[in-house]
């Protein structure tokens, strides 16, 4: 018994040492990334967290403020409004594009490609993806022109079509500003899930869908019961990356609305920027940035955890 235990312990030890030796040669290759991560992300983040506990204008001595900036944050209606707006942007940049993208990708792959050929499907896919290659600020400025209440193409089109009663100051009215931004973001983001899902559909075994079809499953049932479970890893990746992107959304707000009218489209990233650079309230801006980072980390952890659980169940 003792000799068996000793043998097992020796074997475990050898295994551990072997793993250690196997991993060591890779360390130098990790170094550049570790150094970059430390300098570009970890160090500035730590400095940001430290700054958030101070009252500071950006230059000169910092004044220790403890949790004052966070207490202020808790009672700041503009900050909470910005969090809700961020949630709306998650819907616009992650949830809606994922759902619509899934349907579109399946339609392009299953219907368009089969009826009109893969070339037509590719062209349509490229058209849907096109907004993704546009610089955000350029796209935002063009949308600003289109939606201009006085000279904009959209209102002109509505008036020309006899639908003048629908003409509106879409970005200037607090009731429609956020919805308008959301609609633009859906247009912008849609191409990304479509491309990812179409690539994912290539690796799904067609025999599964054919078998389901023979069994009498409709297209919707095949999509939901057969295809979606097969491409779940891609769905997680799309949801995670789009959610993180939506929480960080800055350029669209900066170029389209500046957070207005009033604070109708304010989001945490823009609010943090304004606090840093315009209001010179660097401590408060840091507190907003820190909370935003924590939210992103939590969201990412939840997604990755869910993905791991599903993966474990599938295995």
């Amino acid at each position, binding site marked *: 018994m003792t000799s068996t235990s000793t043998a097992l312990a020796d074997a475990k030890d050898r295994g551990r040492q072997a793993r250690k030796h196997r991993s*060591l040669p890779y*360390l*130098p290759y990790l*170094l550049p990334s*570790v*150094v*970059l991560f*430390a*300098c570009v992300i970890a*160090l500035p983040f730590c400095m940001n967290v430290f700054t958030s506990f101070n*009252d500071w*204008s*950006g*230059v*000169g001595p910092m004044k220790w403020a403890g949790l004052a900036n966070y207490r202020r944050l808790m009672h700041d209606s503009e900050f909470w409004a910005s969090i809700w707006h961020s949630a709306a942007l998650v819907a616009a940049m992650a949830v809606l594009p994922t759902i619509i993208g899934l349907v579109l990708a399946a339609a392009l792959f299953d219907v368009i490609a089969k009826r009109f050929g893969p070339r037509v499907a590719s062209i349509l896919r490229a058209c849907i993806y096109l907004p993704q290659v546009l610089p955000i600020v350029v796209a935002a400025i063009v949308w600003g022109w289109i939606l*201009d*209440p*006085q000279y904009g193409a959209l209102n002109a089109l509505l008036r020309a079509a006899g639908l003048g009663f629908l003409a509106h*100051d879409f*970005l*200037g*009215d*607090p009731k429609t500003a956020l919805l308008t931004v959301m609609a633009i973001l859906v247009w912008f983001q849609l191409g990304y899930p479509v491309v990812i899902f179409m690539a994912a559909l290539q690796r799904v075994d067609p025999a599964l869908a054919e078998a389901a079809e023979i069994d009498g499953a409709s297209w919707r049932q095949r999509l939901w019961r057969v295809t979606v479970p097969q491409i779940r890893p891609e769905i997680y990746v799309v949801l995670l990356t789009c959610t993180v992107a939506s929480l960080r959304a800055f350029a669209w707000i900066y170029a389209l*609305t*500046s*957070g*207005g*009218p*009033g*604070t109708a489209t304010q989001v945490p990233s823009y609010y943090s920027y*304004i606090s840093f*650079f*315009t*209001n*010179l*309230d660097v401590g408060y801006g840091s507190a907003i940035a820190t909370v935003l980072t924590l939210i992103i980390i939590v969201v990412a952890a939840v997604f990755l955890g869910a993905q791991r659980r599903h993966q474990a169940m599938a295995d």
Partner: protein
Amino acid sequence: MRRTRSTALLMAALAAATAGLAACGSSGGSSGGSSASGSKVLKIWWYESPGSAYQIAWDQAVTDFKRQHPGVTVQFSLKSFNQMQQNASMILNSSDVPDVMEYNKGDATTGLLSKQGLLTDLTAQATKYGWDKKLSPDLQVTARYSPKGVMGSGDWYGVSDYAEYLTVYYNKTMFAKYHIAVPTTFAQFTAAMADFVKDGVTPLANAGNDYMAMQYLYELELGKATPQDVQNYQRYTGPVNFHDAAWTGAAATFQSWVKQGYIAKDSVGLTATQAGNDFQTGKNPMMVSGSWWAGTFQSAIKNFQWGSFLWPGNTLNAGSGGNLFVVPKNAADKQLAYEFINDTLQPDVEAKLADNGAVPISASTSGVTNPQGMQLIQNFQTLANSNGLAYYPDWPTPSFYNTLLAQTQDLMNGASADQVLGTLQSTYDQYVNSLG
């Protein structure tokens, strides 16, 4: 052992990278002073756009400076307003700074930099070169800052060679077409706007997503404010009540103007450039904005006659000395910087300002060839003679520009005036209390 070596390697790489970053941060230390060849260099930064009156005039100052200093190389860099507004503190805290640069006047800008010790005290130079005689007391307000960074008293930290103020630009052709007289009282002003509305014309160009809407609000407030109210608001010399008659009246009138169509409701998302275009294209017959627009209108408006008049009925009017030339604390050759600043105040440079649509500090009309420029300077003389300059609404706190912008947008969209003024009050009080 390997682990130790790996850790050591990691630490070494980190140290090297950090040192590299630090080196990047402090590189470029040879700011101005002398070039590699040993000759002297004057580094100048400003952010006025090419073709503007200021750029034309300051180019003249550079020419004059070069003539007086043949051995000095002038290195000029054109910056953007945002670049300077957002990064000035960080730039001036480094060693790579210009010798002289344009910067915004006011507590939240030059005042803040002076408080942080990033600017050179120019008091001795102001006396030596006679700048304290050239700038009237009203214009000196934005040049001098207390140790707390509050304008109006204390040492000199900047010098401006021009003035600016809000004025009403009007389309003479449209006024004639609709048989509307140029108003001289506030009642006539509102009557003229009502007449334009009856004719289906929105009288005032506006930009809710820029500085214009807040300037309308401020002009309305100044109509009922006293000089002491202005001092209290701008220099924290006494309590400020945003629920007094002046502010509540201004908010109510502004909202009613939007309701009555004097200001287009759908201008809430527009920028100042768009509002300027609306005036230039004859969409709106009037635009209330800064004298800095005059040069643009002078060159851009060809198809109608235009002029300007002071906001009717106000003794107090938004305005001040212009942007300042400041000398960073770390400037390499301060003496050259002082001499350049002095050149910007000479008659030939002032004449260039006046003739290209700006208001020189001397407010002299000699040599001005265009009638609009003449009118602009004469109106400024009227204001200056009555000590009517009341600065700008967003100056009191660094965050007030954004606060006023958002709150005037809310006013245009029908928010409660009481709530809007309450937000202004709390933001203002929070900052003033933080000053101690």
